[in-house]
Structures are given as structure tokens and as C-alpha cells.
């Protein structure tokens, strides 16, 4: 009879948990993180001499395997600097499905945001919105946008991660999927599934109605992400942008991530934003803030003229 002390039990648990990389080009180098579907390991690609991220299912299961494969396919169709490139997909000797992708070393936005100024946070947000707009243009919804799924690299790279809940709106030939999800591929979660993260999930995604959600569900999540990046007492136009993006009715939101990004960009440039109507005074204040030197000259001129008028009429 085999006797197992606590240390041996812990070693065995680790051994059967780790992916069986024998017979592959990869060697295990550490653990990068874990999620509901699987674990992401750091692996060495011995043929190319580089480190990669290897995502592997924790347990063999047809449903999660289809999701993993779907995620790899989605990543493969989204070649964008803000989206992690996938390298390889397959099955390990222990039967578990895996894929490898670029190893992103950095900090997730929820941990790094506190060290960033508001302009830096807005720059990050604009990169995220660009990546999501690109995905929308390719017919892909992310459906789980939140600070934890945005990685900031050591050189300021911004990458949108975790496309495991992504939904493909159209097939590669451009045929639109039916609203009832009839053309849904295996692993593409849709109608009847509650997906996303509370607080970042659009109302139409809640209660299992995600099959009818469109790009505006991601706009909602981007609005929640923007709101999470704002400091206490934020500028009113930014608050208005986030509020519009998070409108309960999809029709009241920005139609797409690009439109939302453009409004934030306009704020950054000191231009009027669509979500925040201005009266004459607000407009004058914004223009004065944007053109400080000119505003100072005009103000000096007006003060001078006022003083001249005052003294000449005495």
C-alpha cells in the first residue's frame, strides 16, 4: 500500500495538473495565470528559442475544448497590435487541448491604473477602443471587457486579452449569423448563456440574453472600463461620455467602439464631445483652456480696452 505524506501529495497534485509537454517543442517554464477554462503557462519554444504563453485546458471536456479552439480561431483572425497573436494550436499527449500565443509580460490594467495619470489612462483607453473597434470590423465581439483583461506591457504596449467569451457575428465568408444564433459554431457561446462580468456587462447580456447582444454590448463594457479609470470628481465631458456609453438602452449608446473612442479623443484634444452639449460660457471656458496664450492675449486686450474706456470717459 502506498503511503503519501503531505509533501508527496502536493508534488503529485502538481505533476498531474501540469501539461504533458513530452514530444512537443515546448518546455515548461512557469505559470502565468489561470482562469475558469484553463491555465496559462510560460513555456520555452525550443525550436525558436523564445518564450511563449501556452494556454491549456485544466480538464478534458468537449464544451470547454470547443471554446478554447474558438478563442484561438478568433485570435488568429484578429491581427492587430492591440490583440495577442496566436502561434500554434493542438492537443497534448495527455489529451488536453492547448494553444500558444505571444507571451505578454506586464501588469493588468486593474493593477497598473493607480500608477497612471489621467492622460495616460485615456491613452490606454483609446488603444483598447481601437483594438475593440478593429475586432468589431472583423465581426467579433469580445463580451468580457474589463480592466483585468487589458495588459500594459513594460514599453507601454496595450493588449486586450481573454477572448474566451468572444462571439463571431459573421462567418469568414461574411455571411451574417442569424439573430437566433442558428449559424453558431461549436464553442461559440450565445443565446441562453450568461456571460461577462457583473459591473462591466451590458444589461442585454444579463439573464441569458447574450445571443441578441451586438457591438453596443462591448460599447457598454468600454464605458464601464472608462468609468473605472476616472478619478474622483472627473471632468464633466468624460463623465458624460462614460454615461452615454453605459446607457441601459443600446440605442442610446455610441453605435460602435470607434465612435466612443473618437469622443474620448476629442476630449483629449480639447474639442467638443458629442455626449456633452455646451452653452456659450462652457464653450468659451473650454476654448480658453485649449488656447491659453491666445486667451491670455485677448483677456489682456479686453482689460486694457476697458481701462482706457474707463479713464477717457471720466
Amino acid at each position, binding site marked *: 500500500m*502506498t503511503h503519501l*505524506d503531505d*509533501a508527496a*501529495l502536493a508534488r503529485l497534485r502538481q*505533476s498531474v*495538473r501540469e501539461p504533458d509537454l513530452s514530444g512537443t517543442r515546448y518546455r515548461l517554464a512557469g505559470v502565468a495565470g489561470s482562469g475558469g477554462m484553463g491555465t496559462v503557462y510560460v513555456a520555452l519554444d525550443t525550436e525558436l528559442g523564445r518564450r511563449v504563453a501556452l494556454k491549456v485546458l*485544466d*480538464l478534458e471536456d468537449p464544451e470547454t475544448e470547443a471554446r478554447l479552439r474558438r478563442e484561438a480561431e478568433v485570435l488568429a483572425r484578429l491581427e492587430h497590435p492591440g490583440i495577442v497573436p496566436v502561434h500554434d494550436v*493542438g492537443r497534448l499527449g495527455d489529451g488536453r487541448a492547448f494553444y500558444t500565443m505571444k507571451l505578454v509580460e506586464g501588469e493588468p490594467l486593474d493593477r497598473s491604473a493607480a500608477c497612471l495619470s489621467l492622460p495616460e489612462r485615456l491613452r490606454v483607453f483609446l488603444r483598447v477602443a481601437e483594438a475593440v473597434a478593429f475586432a468589431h470590423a472583423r465581426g467579433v465581439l469580445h463580451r468580457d471587457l474589463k480592466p483585468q483583461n487589458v495588459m500594459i506591457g513594460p514599453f507601454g504596449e496595450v493588449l486586450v486579452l481573454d477572448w474566451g467569451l468572444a462571439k463571431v457575428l459573421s462567418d469568414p465568408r461574411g455571411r451574417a449569423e442569424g439573430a437566433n444564433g442558428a449559424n453558431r459554431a461549436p464553442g461559440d457561446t450565445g443565446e441562453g448563456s450568461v456571460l461577462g462580468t457583473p459591473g462591466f456587462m451590458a444589461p442585454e447580456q444579463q439573464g441569458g440574453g447574450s445571443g441578441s447582444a451586438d457591438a453596443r454590448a462591448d460599447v457598454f463594457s468600454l464605458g464601464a472600463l472608462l468609468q473605472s479609470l476616472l478619478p474622483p470628481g472627473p471632468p464633466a465631458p468624460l463623465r458624460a461620455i462614460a454615461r452615454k456609453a453605459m446607457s441601459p438602452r443600446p440605442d442610446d449608446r455610441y453605435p460602435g467602439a470607434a465612435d466612443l473612442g473618437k469622443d474620448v479623443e476629442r476630449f483629449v484634444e480639447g474639442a467638443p464631445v458629442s455626449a456633452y452639449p455646451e452653452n456659450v460660457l462652457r464653450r468659451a471656458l473650454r476654448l480658453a483652456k485649449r488656447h491659453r496664450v491666445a486667451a491670455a492675449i485677448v483677456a489682456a486686450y479686453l482689460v486694457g480696452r476697458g481701462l482706457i474706456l474707463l479713464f477717457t470717459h471720466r
Partner: protein
Amino acid sequence: MPRTDDERLTRGFPPTRHSALAAIRGGDEEQRRRGLSALAAAYWRPVYGYLRLHWRKPHDEAADLTQEFFAHVLEKDLLARFDPARARLRTFLRACIDRVAAGGDRAARRLKRGGGAAAVPFDFEGARAEVEKAAGSAESADVLFEREWARGLFAAALERLRELCAREGKSQHFALLEEYDLEAGADRPSYADLARRFGIATTDVTNRLAWARRKLREVLLDLLRECTATESELREEARTLLGLDGP
């Protein structure tokens, strides 16, 4: 090489094993005894450990009660009351043990010693030292039972793997696993050390150890499948067993 083609990615999963639970709940007496043996192989250790540590039973009484508990499961048809929609089997069995332990002396007098018990040799002396090492730790009953359950399943899986290796002429594969994962202290031997000790190439150590671990995982999950009632229970229990949800 990894299998990268569509065919392999969509290949079938292992067929569902015959559940020990279904066998115990079935009408055939022989099937019920076989099912109980499978259940007892996985659960005798956590039952014994739980009786020692939570119920503070001395060794002899805990060993007797463990035997009697499994006989009790069969004779009283306890698993007929198990509803997988309401609880995991592990939780249900722990509640049953509590009832047996609470009235243990009476149950012991009623049941013939060993009568109706599963045909599994319980190595209580072997388990005794491990349990007594943990005797001082202040753990909740849940944590204690879960840890002993995991230890019991891994121990049973190792026994099956040892038999499998002996049958397939791969005893060295098992010996490598023992050296590297079971008997090593804080300083594990390197693969090169093992290669020298066993007189084989380092690549052989890598491959044989990988094979043994792969098989251990398979055997362990098969064992768990036999002792769970539904696929969702199997997945939840597998996550706990493999430590996927953290400590």
C-alpha cells in the same frame, strides 16, 4: 509531436466508466459488492482519518468503525438516499459517517465484525502514522475530510498504476515516478541523476516519467468518475482533487 490537425482536436472523449454508485444502487448483489469495493478503495482512508481526527476515535475503534461504515452503506442501502442534485457524494458520505460515528458503539454491536464489508484490504497501520502526524493541526472537518479524501484517491490511483505498470512490463516507469514524485524530499534528484541510477538515457527518464504521470492522471480521473454521480459533480470534484481552485 503535438497533434495539430482537426481530426485530433475533435476526437472523442473517453467513454463514461461504469459508476460504482450505479452498481451499489443496482439490484444485483455481486455488482453491489464490486461497486462497494471501488467506493471503499477510494474512501476508506478519508473515513478512517476523519474518525481519528474529527471524532477523536482511537486507532482500533476508528478501524472497526471504518469497516462497519462500508458494511452499513451496503446493508442499509444508504446510497439510495443520495441525491446528486442536492450534494456531492463526498458531502453526503461525511454526513453518513457522522451518524454512524455518533451511534458507533450501537452500530458496532449490531453488525457482525466485517460482515458485508467490501473486499478491500484496508492498511490501517499504514494510514495510522500519517493521520497521527496531522493530529495536532487545527483544521475544520471539511478541510480535513477533503485532504484525506484526496490522499485516499491518489493512494488508490497509485496502486492501480503500480498494477498497470507491472502488467505492461513498465515497472521502471513506476519506479521513476516513486523516486521523483513520492520519495524525494525537498531536493528532488535531477533527471540526469535518475538516468545514472537507473542506467538509462536522460531522454528515457523524461519520456517514462511523462508516461507515468499521464497514466496516473488518467487512472485518477477514472477512479473519480467511478465515485461521482454526474458529469458536473465529476468536474467539480476533479478541480478540487487536482488543486485547480487554489488551496
